[in-house]
């Protein structure tokens, strides 16, 4: 067909017109740090494993998860999930229930018997880990993965440290704890129980280890001087909780008074209730607002009928009764005595006033410094002694299981660097994916999945786990509530909304690419990207 001149044109001829030259600013794909990852003390790549969980690929999600934390089933239960506090979705409806999905993945792994990644080739280096608590186990896991030989010396008769002796089984069932610890052992981590290190220096000499990681935790209960009659029964919370584990449940009586305001106090009171106490009363010298215990646990405790007595200190312990002085907060919010007294009935008093670290075994370690009862470490968790590292409750920081696990991971990384004689390198962090960068219109409304809870009666009378887990469906549902803040989740918006077809789709998992030959730089893609993973940068003229 001989076509008329000029008026009739061949298809595709416009490709010769490179409209990219119109551009004054160009779109670029970026990855931002999601607030959840940012807030996770264990440095978990939460958005990363949720991304995999969204597609129902739980195995992959779990494998991604355990790259940072070998104990998701425990974490999903014991962690106070700062990730959820930081979650951008909270500003939309409710935070994604990250811990619930994590727990689901952890439980699924146990159920299916998924294995942790095999260790790398042997490095013929040996690291001693002191203490089989969260921090120690975490460090051991990471070191082992890196191919190092790891030996754990645990003073106690059981692994888990505070995960076992600090967290009652109704919050963390023991078969879960045992399963995840066992999995770490299977990697070839050697755990020696009832092996107390009295003098680290000599132990290191004897064992000939190349480095040590100290994570003995804080197991010395703080005492307070309370004048007491002979008949009066006073215990400390840790021994109560430890007793539960070692098979010597304490005798507490029908009316139990717990003194303190931390999580341990709540655990002690809730344990007492489960042991048959008709009344468990928590006495705290400040107000509820000032109470360090976690809100969630407060809720549960109150539901279970735990009583509270605020602004009170225990002055004297008698037989079946205690003298309490009322306090009032001063301008700075510190409690001050009022001189008003009252007497309350109680068969026993449980002290939950915090714990100290037993640092005796460090006396001969060169250069190691101690300050306010804890070991000083630098940013690499290294003590003053170059091949000795420390973490968990024995170093200056908040005392949570998650943080402890984070310490273990961080220490392991640095021990490895140390052992390889490499220079310490800090991996640069992405900019934070803040809420204002999201285009939330594209996310449809979805209420948070509520985890089933054990009925009250059984909670008050047994040690069964209070929080149920998610099933496969609502776990998937929950995972998909993730907004994937700051990281492309391949929604195809940029690809579909470009008026100039200047976005190239690379295929599943491969994300997209801009075709700057034609991109006019209108900025629609950046504006309409739900998760804020596109940035407009000015063209340099």
């Amino acid at each position, binding site marked *: *067909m*001989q076509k*008329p001149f*000029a*008026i*009739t044109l061949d*298809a595709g001829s416009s490709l010769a017109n490179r409209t990219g030259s119109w551009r004054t600013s160009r779109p670029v794909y970026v990855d931002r740090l999601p607030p959840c990852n940012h807030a996770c003390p264990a440095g978990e790549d939460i958005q990363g494993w949720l991304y995999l969980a969204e597609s129902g690929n739980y195995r992959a999600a779990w494998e991604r998860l355990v790259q940072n934390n070998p104990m998701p089933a425990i974490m999903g239960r014991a962690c106070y999930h700062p990730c959820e506090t930081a979650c951008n979705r909270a500003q939309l409806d409710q935070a994604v229930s990250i811990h619930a999905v994590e727990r689901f993945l952890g439980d699924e792994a146990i159920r299916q018997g998924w294995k942790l990644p095999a260790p790398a080739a042997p490095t013929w280096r040996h690291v001693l880990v002191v203490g089989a608590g969260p921090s120690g186990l975490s460090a051991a896991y990471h070191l082992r993965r890196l191919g190092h030989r790891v030996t754990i010396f645990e003073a106690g008769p059981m692994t888990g440290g505070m995960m076992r002796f600090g967290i009652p089984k109704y919050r963390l069932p023991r078969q879960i704890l045992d399963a995840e610890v066992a999995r770490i052992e299977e990697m070839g981590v050697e755990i020696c129980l009832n092996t107390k290190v009295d003098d680290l220096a000599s132990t290191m000499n004897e064992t000939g280890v190349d480095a040590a990681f100290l994570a003995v935790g804080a197991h010395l209960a703080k005492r307070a001087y309370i004048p007491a009659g002979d008949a009066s029964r006073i215990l400390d919370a840790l021994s109560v909780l430890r007793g539960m584990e070692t098979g010597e449940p304490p005798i507490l009586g029908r009316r139990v008074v717990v003194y303190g305001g931390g999580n341990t106090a709540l655990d002690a009171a809730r344990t007492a209730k489960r042991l048959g106490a008709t009344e468990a009363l928590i006495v705290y010298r400040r107000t509820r607002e000032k109470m360090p215990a976690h809100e969630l646990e407060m809720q549960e405790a109150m539901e279970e009928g735990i009583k509270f007595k605020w602004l009170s200190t225990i002055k004297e312990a008698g037989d079946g009764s205690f003298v309490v002085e009322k306090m009032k907060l001063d301008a700075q919010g510190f409690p001050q005595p009022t001189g008003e007294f009252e007497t309350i009935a109680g068969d026993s008093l449980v002290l939950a006033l915090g714990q100290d670290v037993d640092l005796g075994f460090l006396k001969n370690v060169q250069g190691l410094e101690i300050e306010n009862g804890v070991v000083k470490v630098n940013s690499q968790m290294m003590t003053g002694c170059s091949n000795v590292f420390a973490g968990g409750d024995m170093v200056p920081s908040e005392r949570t299981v998650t943080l402890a696990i984070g310490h273990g991971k961080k220490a392991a990384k640095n021990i490895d660097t140390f052992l390889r004689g490499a220079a310490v390198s800090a991996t640069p962090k992405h900019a934070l994916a803040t809420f204002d960068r999201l285009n939330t219109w594209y996310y449809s409304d979805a209420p948070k999945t509520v985890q089933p809870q054990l009925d009250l009666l059984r909670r008050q009378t047994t040690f069964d786990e209070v929080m149920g887990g998610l099933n496969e469906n609502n776990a998937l549902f929950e995972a998909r509530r993730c907004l994937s803040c700051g990281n492309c989740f391949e929604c195809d918006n940029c690809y579909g909304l470009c008026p100039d077809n200047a976005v190239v789709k690379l295929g599943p998992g491969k994300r997209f690419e801009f075709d700057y030959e034609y991109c006019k730089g209108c900025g629609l893609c950046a504006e309409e990207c739900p998760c804020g993973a596109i940035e407009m940068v000015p063209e340099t003229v």
Partner: protein
Amino acid sequence: MLRQIEGSRAVAETVARCRPEVICAYPITPQTHIVEGLSEIVKAGHLKPCEFINVESEFAALSVAIGASAAGARTYTATASQGLLFMAEAVYNASGLGLPIVMTIGNRAIGAPINIWNDHSDSMSMRDAGWIQLFAENNQEAADLHIQAFRLAEELSCPVMVCIDGFILTHAYERVDLPTQEQVDAYLPRFEPRQALDPDQVMSIGAMVGPEAFTEVRYLSHHKQLRALERIPVLSEEFREQFGRASGGLLRRYRTEDADTIVVALGSVNGTIQEVVDDLREEGVKIGSVCLGTFRPFPLAAVREALRNAGRVIVLEKSLAVGIGGIVATDVRMALDGVSARIYTVIAGLGGRAITKASLRKMIGQAQQDQLEPVTFLDLNVGIIQRHLERESKLRRSGPAAENILRDIGLVAARIG
């Protein structure tokens, strides 16, 4: 087959034998009988396959035709007068896109004042629109020209107007030898479009063309018409061979050999002119006439050849270029550039005024004594004109508006008083 038949019907039946695939119809006098005829033929199933579409305006009529033709269908429509003006934009578009549409014009005057009778103002208004314009002398030719028109249009990929005098031909019963289907099929091959909208051969038709190529595009449509000048005589000759009668062509001479006066005209008036020529010849007057069959492209060379030896050329036309006079005459003058003949422009038959032998004889007589105005309006009623001009000159307000208004107020005031 010989028939005593109305012109419009003859055209309708002939067009039907050209196997148009899409026909767009909108009524306007005096073209209406043609599309009525076609609708009947299509409805009766005598023309298949064919889509007969009743549109909502002439603009739509030609627009539908444009779409159909661009999609490769043989397409036909018809209109007249105001209708042609209403589709003007599409008229230019069809030729610009090189779409071989055939359209019959039942020639009629253009208002205001509204007038339904015959003259050539409508076709003339579109003479530069890039369409080929053929004029029929009688109903036999009106029918025959359509067959040639489709062939010509499709060969050149250029639209063609077949112009038929409204009423005088469209409504006249005459003897017409209607071609048979076999004859037409033998003469008119299947439509092979030069371009066609087709999902399997993707292209864009109707691009915007800037200064860099517009002149070339226009030159090419001019060139197309020059090619038509070569093809029209050939197709007319082929037609004569196959149908056994002469129809179409650039022009036809009538007793012009040795003629010293030659009358040039378009369309049906040529019959009357030839009657007058015969009468005058009997009286020994050396006169002849030329019937222009093709007006666009204008056959400059053929016209020059036909008129070069005449001392006197009278261009009789049914159209008026207001402010200058003739339209056809202007083109004839161009053809005769450098030839010494006197050229008269005679405007006749406007709005259906009868062109009578008597008037023609009188006019020719004056021409022969060289007493004819260079631009003459045949049978102009001078009396009416003068009376009106007088009245106008009396009524026309003179002087500054303010005074006139004041005068009016004065009158009103007087009445009140």
